[in-house]
């Protein structure tokens, strides 16, 4: 008869080890899944008014050369701050852009440029119109003009303006928002962005 005492003990130890390893692996999988779900997306789907859907990602905007209507020179679009509120607007048919401008100005003043910046991207506007726009409204934040329609070509966006996207330096999209022509909705948007950029309350 074979003595089984030492092998039984080994087997028990091995079974315990296997169980422990399995539990650890499962815990790691759960943690990874939860972590992945929490991370901000790098691309978002946008529902358009015409029923279509468009995808927006920061990758699509990389390498964009845009016109600065103040200087008349081309500038590359770049995310130089920890977080950037990118606002797509147009110079002509956008009364809501003029309504919400106040909120963007307040947010732009809320934090220093290393932490947070507002960048306006003028679409569907000519250089002359962009120049009229910046002269008339003198926005304190950077405004660049997509004079060649590159943004629309790359993203099929935006179909309506203003359209806002808050991104971080890693190219993750933290939130998006469409036009808000009611003061309450504008206030809610301001508070959401203020919370994201870590200011107690954007100066109103």
């Amino acid at each position: 008869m074979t003595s089984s005492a030492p092998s039984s003990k080994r087997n028990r130890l091995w079974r315990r080890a296997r169980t422990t390893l399995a539990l650890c692996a499962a815990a790691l999988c759960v943690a990874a899944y939860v972590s992945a779900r929490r991370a901000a997306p790098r691309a978002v789907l946008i529902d358009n008014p015409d029923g279509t859907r468009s995808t927006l990602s920061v990758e699509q905007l990389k390498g964009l050369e845009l016109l600065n209507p103040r200087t008349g020179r081309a500038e590359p679009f770049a995310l130089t701050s920890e977080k950037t509120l990118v606002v797509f607007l147009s110079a002509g048919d956008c009364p809501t852009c003029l309504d919400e401008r106040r909120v963007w100005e307040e947010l732009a003043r809320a934090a220093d440029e290393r932490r947070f910046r507002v960048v306006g991207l003028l679409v569907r506007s000519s250089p002359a119109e962009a120049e009229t726009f910046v002269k008339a409204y003198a926005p304190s934040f950077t405004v660049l003009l997509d004079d060649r329609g590159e943004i629309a070509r790359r993203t099929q966006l935006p179909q309506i303006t203003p359209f806002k996207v808050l991104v971080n330096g890693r190219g993750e999209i933290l939130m998006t928002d469409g036009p808000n022509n009611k003061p309450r909705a504008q206030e809610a948007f301001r508070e959401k962005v203020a919370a994201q950029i870590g200011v107690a309350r954007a100066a109103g």
Partner: protein
Amino acid sequence: MKHKLSLLFGCVVAICLVCAIRFAPVKRLAAVPKASAAPAPPDLYAPALERARDRSQDDGLAAALKIDSKVSLDGARIKNLNQLSVASNGDLYIVDYERKQAEAYDREGRYLGPLGEQGNKPGAQLWPTGAAAADGQTVAVADFAGHRVNTFTREGKFLSSFIYTPQGFSAQKVVYDGAGRSFYLLGNRWQRDEAGQVTGAQLVHKYAADGQFIDSYLPFPDSAKALDLYNYDSPAADADRSSLYVALPFDYTIYRLAPDGQLSVFVRGQEPAFRAPSEGINVEKIPPAESYRRIQNWRLGWTPISALVVSGDTLLVQYQSFNPLRYTIDFWSIEKRKKLRSVNTNCALLTKGQDGYLYLLENLEAKGQQRYDIIRAKL
């Protein structure tokens, strides 16, 4: 036994009572008759048009103007010919309000092409409301909703654009002054008090040819505020030798805006031919299906000025009079500031072309026609 019978009798009575209560016919209250909706007012406009049509033989235009020729535009495309402008070579630029499209035709009425597509980018229009022949065979189209003016070649090639967004109005018309190289956009630039309530508006806005804003003029008359005529204040205007002559539909006061920006009253028309409105109209209280008819009925109660042109020394003012022809055109001497004569006609859309001719639409109505016949005439 007696007790049981009494009990049975009591049950039967109780059941009968319950049935009587439960199933008794309910006396219904007499139905309250619905307040009958006010009957729609009769259509006064269509009969007025018919009477005008029946009296076409009395049209006095041929006696007042030398009719040179006619050009016809195909009605298959045009639904509502609302605005007309004519270039120095006779090209016709029209705005069709129903299709929200501006387009070009040549002197013989052949279709040249669209002036801008539908859209909100430079070179496109959301709602074109005016076209004006500009310098060098170009045409400017004003966009009411897009707040921009696009300039095209006669073939529709986009040349340039400017926005008027900062001035905060929507352009109903555009006039080009070739001598002063300026655009005039006409529309309500609202003035508001601290509470945001409308207190008035400025109606004429001048821009340089490159789109630089110059100034706004012509305050909405106080007398028309009481009737709330803001929605019916689309001015009639014409530029001549760097001055702009302008009149509001409900007021026979012709203003002159001089090149230096001075606005003055040039002439005032007299009754009884011209009648100002005595009451306003609130379309919000009118069912949408009835609004067109109600507005036309209301307009029959006064004589809206629809066009104004300056040709040489003569100022022509056209207004809807239905007396019984649809329009009356007053001829004024600019030098003497006196009315020379009046003519009744069914022709509409009095326009001065850059080619020196006067143009009028011969059709009684500017919409739904198989063919739009345009008269070319001279004083």
